[in-house]
């Protein structure tokens, strides 16, 4: 009986993000007649693309029950290097170099997380967050940095009517989806997140997996930085500041658990788009700017609340049942 009710609740909780999304769209659609247009949908996707890309990266880390607070700092360092040192170089060379910087910085995180095992990645990446922000400030001297017209023009380029940022976003999403679902590496990430001891016993090289996910996360943070800078053209010392919050929120909102082993990039993308939809809806309805952080905070809070309820119900359902027939 009780369990039956639980199952219904669970179904509702699982559907909750979609219901919330629908509600948000309907509310803003009623409030602003421009909201429900293809063009606006494109805008939302474009603007959420850098968050979504970084959130995809952090999904890999969260799946192993880790966390990376340094993504915003990596993003800033990557862009600062692009603007300051890779100015004259064509983007086809400059962008991969920036990606490499992201991988290197992610590798630093990964190295410390593995070496300082027993210390939560939270505190490790908190430290690298400080160090990398410091490095970026050192590079830029806190000045605003500008990128070349060749980078900026990408922010205005469309292929087949779809902006460049969305293409990048789509490519990252598809690759990430395939990697997580269809490659041995992806499935082993899930295994490590579920139970690292068992994973080690099954012969999985757990440190290697952990190291790789931080590299991926660093790489995608750099890519997110590129996508963002191509749109906004210049980066001040607040570039990427505290962006880890919406990024983590997007992943959690999409159903990726902070405790590892559960979630995926589809949900993450959904979460990122939902957050951006709300932001854009608030601007379109000319809402008072003070309310933005409040609304965002409330949305994240509700998402995690739902996740918490879902987890506890899953736990109850997962408990051993002696008398199975009574709950069927």
């Amino acid at each position, binding site marked *: 009986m009780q369990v039956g009710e639980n199952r219904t609740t669970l179904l509702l909780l699982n559907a909750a993000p979609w219901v919330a999304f629908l509600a948000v769209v309907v509310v803003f659609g009623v409030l602003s007649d421009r909201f429900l247009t293809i063009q606006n949908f494109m805008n939302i996707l474009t603007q959420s693309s850098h968050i979504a890309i970084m959130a995809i990266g952090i999904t890999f880390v969260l799946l192993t029950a880790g966390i990376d607070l340094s993504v915003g700092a990596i993003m800033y360092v990557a862009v600062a290097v692009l603007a300051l040192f890779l100015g004259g170089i064509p983007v086809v060379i400059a962008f991969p170099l920036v990606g490499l910087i992201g991988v290197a910085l992610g590798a630093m995180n990964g190295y410390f997380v593995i070496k300082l095992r027993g210390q939560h990645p939270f505190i490790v990446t908190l*430290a690298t967050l400080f160090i990398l922000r410091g490095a970026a400030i050192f590079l830029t001297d806190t000045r605003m940095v500008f990128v070349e017209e060749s980078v900026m023009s990408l922010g205005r380029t469309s292929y087949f009517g779809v902006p460049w940022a969305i293409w990048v976003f789509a490519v990252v999403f598809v690759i990430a989806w395939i990697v997580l679902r269809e490659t041995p590496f992806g499935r082993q990430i899930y295994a490590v997140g579920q139970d690292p001891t068992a994973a080690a016993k099954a012969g999985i090289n757990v440190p290697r997996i952990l190291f790789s996910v931080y590299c991926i996360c660093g790489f995608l943070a750099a890519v997110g930085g590129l996508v963002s800078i191509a749109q906004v053209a210049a980066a001040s010392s607040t570039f990427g500041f505290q962006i880890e919050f919406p990024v983590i929120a997007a992943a959690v909102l999409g159903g990726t658990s902070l405790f590892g082993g559960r979630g995926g990039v589809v949900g993450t993308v959904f979460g990122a788009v939902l957050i951006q939809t709300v932001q854009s809806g608030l601007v379109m309805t000319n809402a008072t700017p003070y309310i933005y*952080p409040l609304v965002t905070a409330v949305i994240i809070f509700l998402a995690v609340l739902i996740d918490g309820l879902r987890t506890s119900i899953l736990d109850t359902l997962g408990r051993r049942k002696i008398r199975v027939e009574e709950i069927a």
Partner: protein
Amino acid sequence: MPIDAAETPVDTKVEIPKVRAFRRLLERLILSEYLVFYITGVYFLIVWPIVPEIASFSSLRNILTDMLPLLVVAIGQTFVLIVAGIDLSVTGVIAMASVVGASIMTSDGGYLQGSALAIPVGIIAFLVVGGLIGGFNGWCVTRLNMPPIIVTLTGMMFLGGAAIWFTKAHSPTSSIAGLPRAFVAIGGGTFAGVPIALFVAIAVVVVAHFLLSQTVFGRWLYAIGINPKAAKVSGVPVDKAILWAFVISGVCAAITSMLLTGRLETGTPVLGQRILLDIIAAVVIGGTSLAGGKGKIIWTVGGVLFLVTIDASLKLLGSSLFIVFAVKGGVILLAVGLDAMRQRILARGSG
């Protein structure tokens, strides 16, 4: 080669005991719970010749008064970390309590402008804001099964925004000034030459230390941090104790808010926004574990002292923001590295 080989044993025979003794001393130092005090001392001695001003009376006094607000909020954080939680909303509490308290006391249009009750009610408002927010955090964590990181993270975002909104509704400018002199004294005033803030901080330290080391409540907190399931089976009111840990953290943040608000003579919604990482870093550097079950007030005092000493030296050196960031990040890494090393030595020692 053979000649060298013949000589080496002589050397090593002399060297080994010394090396061993040195190693043992080093291990003892690393294992010591007061490690951070020693490091602070060493650091101080290193920078002394570079910036002699750091040892002046007024500079030492500045270090002392600069550390008080950070210390109080870090003490609250210690309670939460001991139960294996974390409270990121403290900066939000600092901001919110600051503007709410100020809105009551301010002489330009405060709720109790000019009333004799203004200051007591204002102080109570600070504490109530902190206590309520802490209580809400604790409730979410214990009752709604939400991870503390996220609960308090959203709390931080929400309160930061709400504090600006609140200020906007109470002041034409971006902050609330005109606070009564008697209140301002809490942050900046002195009594018999001693900063009043020092009395406040000492009171907090003493009460917190007593709670943690001498009372049933303190034992409960440690037990929960080590193993909440076992604590529950042993009859510890786990949920209630965690709730109270968050309330204490909120109240401590509110006291810090009072100190800072008094010091700047202004209620501002961005107060403390940038010190979140300092707070957690200070507690962790002191030796309190993020994994719970381990922590002492005296350790936190050491961690805060260390951080503020470094900060003071960097300020006197006129260091750039880059160095400040890099040093802080490096220090956190160093602290976790030392802790990892300590764990390894302990495991070996018993193996």
